């Protein structure tokens, strides 16, 4: 009995984190967008700089009507957002928030995350297909092609790190980088790890459909892509999954290259409590970077996206992998 109880708590904490984080990051995204564009964004709800606006938005989405298009495939239509959210939520299980808290300390943690996030593709395809809308279908098709092809550079760059550290366990990867800034993976095997990080970051942008790779939901072409027909809470699920995914890939970037929950100052401020702080702030930094990129860049076209993946990222990450492997052997 207490085991089940423990499991419930362990699964509840990431959920709580996602919800709080989503509310915060929604606000940050809007505020960053507006300040980049020389405006103020929302200012009224909740006093200081519209701090309560995301909550109001969420409440609004919760109370909105659920519209299911008449000719849609109703079962898949309802199931799709759940699947999309569930798969990104499930990935949080293997994410080490600090040295003492990880919902499931798996031997093959990073492998598990790669596997489970692939489910997002199925959810998106389901959403696009079942909506019975041409724009949604095009968006879903693009999305599937995109995520499937960007899986390869992502995995290759993760593999490079794995070769360097020699483990698939995320907790252990963090342990290895414990000695402060200089022992972070990004500074190992210069400059190959840096390139690996750049490849991983670029590919992860595509995996979570962020600008400049947001073509599945390219609003000026496909209206809203696969979630054109979604309203209310179902739409909010997609939204939530997108933001959850953003942090997921950023968190993995932090773990793989920037020491995860370990303090940048070695032993200083390295208690488990601080660990959460370091991990979350590192993750949020990359989320912030993603947001900044979104408000800076135009988006690529679907074939250019494929070009970037297959002709730029994949070959370079192969070269990287080999170089790091050689170096590791020779060392």
């Amino acid at each position: 009995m207490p085991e089940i109880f423990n499991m419930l708590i362990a699964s509840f904490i990431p959920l709580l984190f996602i919800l709080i984080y989503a509310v915060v990051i929604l606000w940050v995204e809007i505020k960053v967008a507006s300040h980049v564009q020389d405006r103020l964004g929302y200012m009224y709800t909740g006093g200081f700089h519209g701090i309560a606006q995301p909550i109001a938005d969420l409440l609004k989405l919760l109370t909105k009507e659920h519209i299911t298009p008449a000719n849609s495939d109703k079962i898949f239509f309802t199931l799709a957002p759940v699947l999309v959210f569930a798969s990104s939520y499930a990935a949080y299980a293997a994410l080490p928030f600090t040295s003492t808290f990880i919902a499931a300390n798996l031997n093959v943690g990073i492998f598990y995350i790669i596997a489970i996030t692939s489910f997002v593709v199925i959810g998106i395809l389901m959403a696009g297909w079942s909506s019975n809308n041409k724009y949604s279908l095009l968006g879903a098709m693009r999305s599937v092609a995109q995520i499937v092809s960007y899986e390869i550079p992502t995995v290759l760059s993760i593999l490079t790190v794995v070769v360097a550290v020699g483990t698939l366990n995320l907790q252990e990867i963090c342990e290895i980088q414990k000695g402060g800034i200089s022992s972070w993976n990004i500074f190992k095997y210069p400059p190959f790890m840096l390139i690996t990080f750049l490849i991983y970051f670029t590919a992860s942008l595509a995996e979570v459909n962020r600008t400049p790779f947001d073509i599945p939901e390219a609003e000026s072409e496909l209206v809203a892509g696969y979630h054109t027909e979604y309203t209310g809470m179902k739409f909010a699920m997609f939204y939530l999954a997108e933001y959850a995914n953003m942090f997921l890939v950023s968190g993995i970037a932090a773990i793989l290259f920037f020491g995860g929950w370990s303090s940048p100052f070695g032993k200083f401020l390295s208690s488990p409590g601080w660990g959460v702080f370091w991990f979350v702030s590192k993750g949020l930094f990359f989320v912030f970077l993603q947001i900044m990129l979104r408000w800076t860049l135009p988006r690529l076209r679907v074939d250019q996206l494929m070009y970037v993946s297959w002709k730029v990222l994949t070959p370079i990450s192969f070269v990287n992998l080999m170089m790091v492997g050689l170096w590791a052997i020779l060392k």
Partner: protein
Amino acid sequence: MATFEITTRSVRGDLKTDTMILNMGPQHPSTHGVLRLELVVDGEIIVDVIPHIGYLHRCFEKHAEQMTNYQQVIPYVDRMDYVAAMGNELAYVLAVEKLMGLEVPERVQYIRVIMAELQRIASHLLAVGTYGLDLGAFTPFLWCFREREKILDLFEITCGARLLYNYIWVGGLSHDLPSEFGKKLKDFLKTFPKALKEINDLLTFNKIFIDRTANIGVLPPDVAINYGCSGPMLRGSGVKFDLRKNEPYLVYDRFEFDVPVGEGKMGTVGDCWDRYYVRVREMEESLKIIEQAWEQLPPGDVHSAIPKKVRPPQGEVYFRTENPRGEIGFYIISDGHSASPFRVKARAPSFVNLSVLPEISRGYMIADLVAILGSVDIVLGEVDR
């Protein structure tokens, strides 16, 4: 991310595939209004485009015939190309003045030039900004709007309206320039180049932006002329034709300025990037014209030549000027005795420019169509009139 080759049709082999008809618009984020495009697509590749227009048809020509005098047509003319209303007024008023054989004072002509060029900058800012928006870059759009606001402020202190001015009248202007106009104009002239440079850095020379627009929607010069394209659309194809130079009206022959043409700097001559960059360069040239015009601005009265009754003799005129979007022409027939025009035909640049869209977008992808449509830069108020 090098330039890539366009495959016109996918290879089919034995697989049975079918084209799909996709309705883009009348409600769509990137059709710039209520344009409906019927796309025949093969996957993502466009086989054919059939534009359907007329959703914003407001019977401008019929209205113009029903008015009680020539002056009343001007507010309607404003509403054709509603982001470049000054240019429309100018064309209409110059046509009527030519029909009447009216001479206007120098000061009026200079102010008209300043207004028309300010309007050109404002309109091009909108075109550049929304083009970024079409390609997914949101920020340049609002930066452009920030600059455009300054021009609209200038217009507002001059004539009281921000968008639809009714400022240029037959024989003169509704108001003279206000006293604070000079200072505000100088402020704008000083800050604008910096803002333009920022937009260039952020958008124009961004590699992703170039990849999205270079070699896309190539319009060869002979096709452009045959389709009657004008303005940045024609100049983007490398034809050095600008009515301000080739058929100078007002006092344009007294200013020094370049006519930017597409050079194929990032791809082929006449692609979307060229058309876009012509607009950016034109803004710089307009700045030059404004600076010169402001220096030469003579004193005088702007109301002195306004006739009591506008009653042109029997005859007809086709007069064209260079609007931000191209050649705007008014064909006016006067029957000589009534105070309202017998027939007004507006040759709207967007209307003609849009007709080339199917020709230049076949074989590209849906995302490219958005880029091409954005680079044509239509205003539906003018297409449908």
